[in-house]
């Protein structure tokens, strides 16, 4: 029995189980936590694939930063469970269609060697070299430096937009109205 296969089996079951649990959790806080568990399992899968940097970033950015902010919002929403009806009508057929498309794409991608007879370029050695932080940094900052900078600019614009939106709300309320609204609580 291969140790790597065993670890993969455990992680695969965990990631699918936590993903399902996240969808079916009635309590939003539990849902967020299952999602964190899912991110952790996927991060460990990255380690198994020889990409420790991606794993660390997955934990640091998704599980550590973004999900904590999610948790903040969800915690303040209160204990009532989420409603079961759909907010956007008619999304089920689309969900099914896109799910099937994704599955088909993945099946083709995984079996590309069997289908075309040409081995894929991501061999174990290539992966282990590319997964290292230095290799990743070289790719990002030499080959893809323009897209990288454009992405950071986009994020900056988003951030400034959020600040502007948060600021304007305060200005729109005249002082006396704001104090009256505060007083009725």
């Amino acid at each position, binding site marked *: 029995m291969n140790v790597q296969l065993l670890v993969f089996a455990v992680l695969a079951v965990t990631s699918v189980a936590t993903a399902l649990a996240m969808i079916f959790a009635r309590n939003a806080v539990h849902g967020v936590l299952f999602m964190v568990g899912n991110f952790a399992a996927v991060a460990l899968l990255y380690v198994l694939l020889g990409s420790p940097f991606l794993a660390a970033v997955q934990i*640091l950015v998704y599980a550590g930063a973004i999900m904590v902010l999610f948790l903040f919002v969800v915690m303040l929403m209160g204990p009532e469970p989420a409603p079961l009806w759909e907010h956007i009508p008619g999304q089920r057929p689309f969900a099914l269609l896109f799910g099937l498309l994704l599955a088909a794409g993945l099946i083709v991608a995984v079996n590309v060697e069997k289908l075309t007879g040409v081995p894929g370029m991501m061999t174990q050695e290539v992966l282990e070299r590319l997964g290292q932080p230095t290799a990743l940094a070289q790719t990002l900052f030499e080959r893809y430096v323009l897209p990288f900078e454009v992405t950071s600019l986009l994020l900056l614009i988003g951030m400034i937009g959020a600040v502007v939106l948060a600021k304007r709300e305060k200005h729109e309320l005249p002082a006396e109205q704001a104090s009256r609204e505060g007083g009725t609580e």
Partner: protein
Amino acid sequence: MNMSTADVVEIVVKSLVIILALLTGFAYMTWFERRVIARLQSRVGPNRVGPSGLLQPLADGVKLMFKEDIVPAEADKVLYLLAPLVTVVSAIMAFAIVPVGPSVTLFGRTVALHLADMNIALLYFLGLGSLGVYGVVLAGWASNNKYALLGGLRASAQMISYELAMGLAVLSVVMLAGSLSLVDIVNAQAGGRWFILLQPVAFLIFLVTMIAETKRAPFDLPEAEQELVAGFHTEYSGMKFALFFMGEYIAMIAISGVAVSLFLGGWRGPFAEQVPILGVLYFFVKLVAFLFFFVWLRATLPRLRYDRLMHLGWKVLLPLSLANVVVTAIAVVARDTGFFGLG
């Protein structure tokens, strides 16, 4: 992954040693803190149980074990139990990357005195720090108590705010050493070229943020007793309460270990390479110096107001650390290209 049985045994033994050392360190850290604070405040401190009160942690442990275990009726039982465990486990795991000494030869095997030498060690450390936030937030939420919830929210806001500046301070050191591995960073400081000399600003930022990350005075806002009773652990009692303290103290030890490795040359010192035991001793002395600093601060400084805390984190430390990263980047490029006659 080709591991022989001996490798597996080595990893298991090292993990057990680290866990035992951290748990003992936690127990004696409580004793150390109470004795040192007492001395700083002209008191005696615990001195009755055993010589100089050295058995006090044992007595405390037994007392906490036999306390009634209370779970609030409306609490989320599973998360209420999970929260202290998350705190402790994330703190213990963080120590895995800290090298406590050079390689030694034991039973005919060369054993490196660290559990894991990864090329992403510092990211792993920062990631565990951000996972530790969950312990605090969940404790506050699962207790179903408004003071606990407010304490939990405060704690997470504080830890997220200071994580950024801490990451940037670490980044300055990473740029100098050219590696994210703590073992490489310690090796880059061979010959007394400690990074505290090259990166004094990053060191000061790291020092402030490490206190905020471990929620210690003067940044112990999450448990400000005048406003929030005991903050996120208001509802906890007995061993679960002790687990939060265990998490806090072990996090202090782990983060001090990282700080020693980043800025004070880790285990390095005179003759440490020839006599490995000296290296472990140097590491321990530097670690205790940091821990003493934690205690000293708690006895000296009053708590910050919450808005001042946020102001310091976002408007002082973050711009300062960003500026430091920029200056370091220019200096590193100048060193590598021979510009300005440096290098």
